[in-house]
């Protein structure tokens, strides 16, 4: 970095350079040869416009790392020092990606906040030079423009973006537990206004091009092109470049003004923001909301507010300084390590490590048009999969079809789809009551009621009509797949696909393989799941697989805690303040009391005392009274249509009172209650890895966070053990074991990790 800057400064002393560095002279004369020497960034000159192209080798995306940074400085210095060049265009040669953000490895390699702060400051300095450039620079954006990419784009004088679905602008740093550390916190509020900037930086949401244009984040839009003299993607980038060049020229000739006409609303907002009192109110409001939503578990959002405030109230110098310092501090927090780990894990779980299946699944059939079946259908039809939805009765089928339609129509209302696209997608769905067309199915996913004999019945029925290559997948949350496959003529084609409700919102798909499941069947299931937009973990078959198995002991403890006299509201607040998105009692209601009982009973039989804790009787009595949770309108809470605040179901009190268990004061503090729940979860997760149900800690973390709502701030059970310390967890488990018994006995792998502190799940 330093070296390259030295080279850059050299270039200004033309005469001396000629003497000292002959290699460098050549560059000036024949630019094209100079292009070949750099790996990430090259440029060519068209007329008087430098076209700077970013294209990191061997990668689908461009990221801002050390090499890119130094090459960029090198190129920019040449652009600035050349007399021939009057303006520049910054563009990516990769379809679908401008710059996806900073290189995370660069940040995780740092060991002290100071190192990270330094990286931030170098980027700040560079982007400041870009911002102050007398030669206008136009950012031509096609594809993702995120994090550092956006920060670079907004330091340019002008931005042109393609109106493509892939073009998304955003500051997702907060989702990684950090903040925009290259001037973003300072420039964004000036560009789009403080409220919009807070929204972008605090939610990390991606903004589509047309919205970005309205917000003033980009200045011009370019429509993506269809086929012409070249493939559409290639020609679109070329066209974007051509358009950007005309604007760069226009800016250099002062024919186009980089300043944008503001609308009335914008003018009013910016006027309001000039009043200190209003600003203070906004900071206060935003901070309040953040505190409420994060429950103090995530430091990044508060620091973002703080840095923005510093910049506005004390000037940009103070702002930049604060930004880089806070950036350094945040990058070292456990939370950011946890979140970055999740981000990496998510990326890993979006790949098919089983390779391409022999036959692509084009025709899907789903049995059962219930909540799950229809949900699976919805995420399939909008990806272009031909889908048959079969149920036994017209009423049930109609309900399922309506669910799919409503799901798609909601997207129309949000303008994510046009009504025409909705209709086209909906026509991929065939609703029927018989097995017509199953002879052409490539995969059948059954989502019928969780009853082994029923599953056996449909499996036999289906196998009578499907072709040989067709995969039979069972969407079950607890029934072992090998028991389902027991009646199959072709067990190598049977697999488990455990979706989570609501299917269109929950990202996770847990795929369960038996010993007989063939690799190609697994590859097929993963391929379909990926097409449906899922994050996928592949686990071995066993009672409860991975997710249900981890959840069950925690649920058992939930019942126990309720029996000990802790109210559902209190329990909910304890769990959400620990970072669970949904309170524990509410979760039982959401899952369904009957389902919870069913699972607890089944797994209890297999795992015996390790799943002990609460009494099954509580659930049984609830079911007897018809308190099945949300679906029946009553569970621990009362659910009414249109009523947002839910009230406690007072009828539960008598059940809990009659089954009351003594609470033990030394393990019943608020913190103890939280840890009793979490340690049982973590212990079971680690046991799953120990037993080989899980293939890797990464999949364990992803499954727990995306499927079960394990606190993302902790990064998942395995990351939690690494960051919190295995010894501390074992200590807690031992303490609870002494009080309650074997359900808290730490598993061997956890004990191993505790006894040798160097052992980590993530090295």
């Amino acid at each position: 970095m330093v070296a390259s800057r030295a080279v850059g400064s050299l270039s200004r002393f033309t005469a001396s350079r000629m003497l000292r560095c002959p290699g460098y002279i050549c560059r000036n004369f024949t630019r094209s040869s100079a292009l070949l020497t750099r790996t990430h960034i090259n440029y060519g000159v068209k007329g008087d416009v430098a076209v700077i192209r970013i294209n990191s080798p061997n990668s689908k995306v461009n990221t801002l790392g050390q090499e890119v940074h130094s090459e960029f400085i090198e190129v920019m210095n040449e652009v600035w020092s050349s007399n021939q060049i009057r303006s520049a265009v910054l563009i990516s040669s990769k379809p679908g990606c401008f710059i996806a953000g900073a290189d995370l490895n660069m940040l995780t390699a740092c060991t002290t906040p100071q190192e990270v702060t330094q990286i931030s400051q170098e980027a700040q300095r560079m982007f400041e030079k870009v911002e102050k450039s007398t030669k206008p620079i136009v950012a031509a954006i096609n594809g993702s423009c995120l994090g550092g990419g956006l920060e670079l784009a907004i330091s340019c004088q002008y931005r042109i973006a393609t109106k493509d679905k892939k073009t998304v602008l955003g500051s997702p740093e907060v989702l990684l537990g950090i903040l925009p550390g290259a001037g973003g916190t300072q420039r964004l509020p000036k560009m789009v206004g403080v409220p919009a900037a807070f929204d972008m930086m605090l939610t990390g949401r991606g903004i589509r091009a047309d919205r970005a244009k309205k917000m003033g984040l980009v200045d011009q839009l370019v429509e993506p092109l269809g086929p012409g003299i070249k493939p559409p993607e290639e020609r679109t980038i070329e066209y974007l470049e051509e358009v950007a060049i005309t604007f760069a020229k226009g800016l250099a000739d002062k024919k186009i003004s980089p300043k944008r006409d503001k609308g009335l609303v914008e003018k009013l907002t910016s006027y309001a923001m000039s009043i200190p009192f209003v600003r203070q109110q906004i900071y206060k409001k935003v901070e309040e909301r953040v505190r409420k939503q994060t429950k103090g578990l995530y430091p990044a959002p508060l620091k973002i507010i703080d840095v923005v405030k510093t910049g506005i109230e004390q000037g940009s110098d103070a702002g930049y300084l604060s930004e880089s310092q806070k950036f350094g501090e945040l990058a070292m927090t456990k939370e950011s390590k946890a979140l970055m780990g999740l981000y990496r894990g998510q990326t890993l779980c979006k790949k098919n490590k089983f390779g391409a299946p022999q036959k692509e699944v084009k025709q899907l059939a789903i049995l059962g048009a219930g909540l799950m079946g229809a949900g699976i259908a919805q995420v399939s039809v909008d990806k272009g999969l031909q889908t048959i939805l079969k149920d036994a009765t017209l009423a049930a089928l109609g309900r399922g079809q309506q669910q799919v339609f409503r799901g798609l129509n909601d997207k129309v209302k949000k303008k994510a789809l046009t009504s025409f696209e909705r209709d086209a997608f909906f026509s991929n769905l065939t609703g029927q009551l018989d097995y017509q067309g199953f002879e052409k199915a490539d995969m059948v996913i059954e989502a019928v009621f969780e009853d082994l004999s029923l599953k056996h019945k449909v499996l036999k029925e289906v196998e009578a009509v499907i072709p040989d290559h067709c995969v039979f997948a069972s969407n079950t949350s607890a029934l072992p797949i090998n028991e389902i496959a027991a009646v199959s003529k072709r067990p190598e084609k049977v697999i488990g696909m455990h979706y989570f409700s609501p299917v269109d919102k929950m990202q996770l798909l847990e795929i369960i393989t038996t010993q007989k499941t063939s690799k190609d069947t697994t590859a097929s299931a993963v391929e379909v799941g990926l097409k449906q937009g899922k994050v996928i973990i592949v686990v071995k078959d066993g009672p409860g697989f991975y997710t249900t198995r981890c959840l069950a002991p925690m649920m058992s403890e939930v019942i126990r805690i309720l029996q000990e006299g802790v109210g559902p509201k209190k329990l909910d607040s304890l769990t959400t303040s620990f970072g669970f998105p949904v309170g524990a009692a509410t979760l039982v209601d959401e899952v369904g009391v009957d389902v919870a009982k069913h699972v607890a009973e089944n797994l209890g039989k297999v795992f015996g005392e390790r799943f002990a804790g609460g009494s099954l009787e509580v659930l049984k009595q609830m079911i007897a009274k018809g308190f099945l949770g949300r679906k029946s309108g009553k569970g621990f809470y009362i659910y009414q249509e249109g009523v947002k605040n839910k009230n406690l179901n007072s009828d539960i009190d008598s059940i809990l009172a009659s089954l009351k268990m003594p609470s033990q004061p030394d393990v019943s503090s608020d913190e103890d209650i939280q840890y009793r729940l979490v340690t049982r979860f973590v212990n079971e997760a680690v046991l799953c890895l120990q037993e080989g149900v899980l293939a890797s800690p990464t999949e364990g973390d992803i499954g727990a966070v995306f499927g079960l709502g394990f606190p993302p701030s902790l990064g998942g059970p395995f990351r939690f053990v690494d960051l919190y310390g295995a010894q501390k967890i074992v200590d807690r488990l031992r303490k609870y074991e002494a009080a309650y018994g074997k359900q808290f006995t730490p598993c061997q792998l956890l004990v191993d990790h505790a006894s040798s502190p160097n052992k980590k799940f993530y090295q």
Partner: protein
Amino acid sequence: MTSLLTYTLKYLPSTSQWTLRFSMRPLSCSSQLRAAAAVQAKSKRTLAKPNLRNIVVVDGVRTPFLLSGTSYKDLMPHDLARAALSGLLHRTSVPKDVVDYIIFGTVIQEVKTSNVAREAALGAGFSDRTPAHTVTMACISSNQAMTTAVNLIASGQCDVVVAGGVELMSDVPIRHSRKMRKMMLDLNKAKTLGQRLSLISKFRLNFLSPELPAVAEFSTNETMGHSADRLAAAFAISRLEQDEYALRSHSLAKKAQDEGLLSDVVPFKVPGKDTVTQDNGIRPSSLEQMAKLKPAFIKPYGTVTAANSSFLTDGASAVLILAEEKALAMGYKPKAYLRDFVYVSQDPKDQLLLGPTYATPKVLEKAGLTMNDIDAFEFHEAFSGQILANLKAMDSDWFAQNYMGRKAKVGSPPLEKFNIWGGSLSLGHPFGATGCRLVMATANRLQKEGGQYGLVAACAAGGQGHAMIVEAYPK
């Protein structure tokens, strides 16, 4: 492209006499030589097929095509269609009761005359025993009317059919909003005062905002000009090229008009106004003037402008189509045969206007002809950019292989045979009526120039296209 254009432009004004022009052809340049040679050696002597009736066009007429909002602005569509029908009756002297069937094409329908063919036929004094129907297929509606006529004759259902098209863009159906319509319909059904009042109480001011007929493609919500601009960009066609082509169209149309070549135009006495005798959209300008215009669709950097697009037009056209033996029995000297035709369709988003590219090779193959066999090309000019994109696409092996599933390109038509009496850009484009104009221009050109085969092609909204081979009737 540019050089070809300027060549044609320079070449045409200098040879005002067509006879002179023909005699000069072999001398002027080598490419012309090849073209001249092709005239003599066709792949096929005729496209007549055994056991199939020959179908002929006796003649065709059209009202002058006028810019919307000018002399026709107070008329209704069937008035214009009536004028075309009367003109045809007058031109061909066909006895009204001989006509077996009447078909018209139209796009934006006047709700009162949704079967405009029938209303116009009755008004024009055709027998009330002659059935009539209306077809719609965007800009190829009257092509569809003609091919429907061809099918009726070929299958032996009819012998004499009038096909035509009409469009009146001066008036379009602007509706109440759906909410307002719903309230009005409910009010109709309301029985008591209470019901009526409760309905009226639901009225909101925004109910009054009108609903305009969509100028956008329904499936993609994109206006056609916008799509044309993207198409031009996809084929890397510059603004200058588009302006040059538009100028060519206007110059050629002007010349054709001045020389009286647009013989299909019949004068129309507009009630309460002067008699309209010629098209009023032909306005040759200069490239400098055209360069001043701002882009009309993709602002501020697009390339499609008002000057290089076809304009909103009012007009009607009609042709008389007969079985050959019937025509001869009635003592007619037909102008041309209508031969093979195809309809194609493709992606309405990115290839909305590429119909001619897809249809041309297909119809040539069907007829067993090659590009060299064609003496007169008449392509519908929706936009300069669209025409130039089609020419480039037809000349691209890459496009043919990757998007059309063909082994090789069909080749682009030589410009000296292409729309040389002007096109939709200059003559105007009443959506429903353009198809008949294209066929008559082809027939008249073949008669005039002595060529044998002509090719008509057009694109249409919805991503559809059409092409037809017209064969000159031997003299």
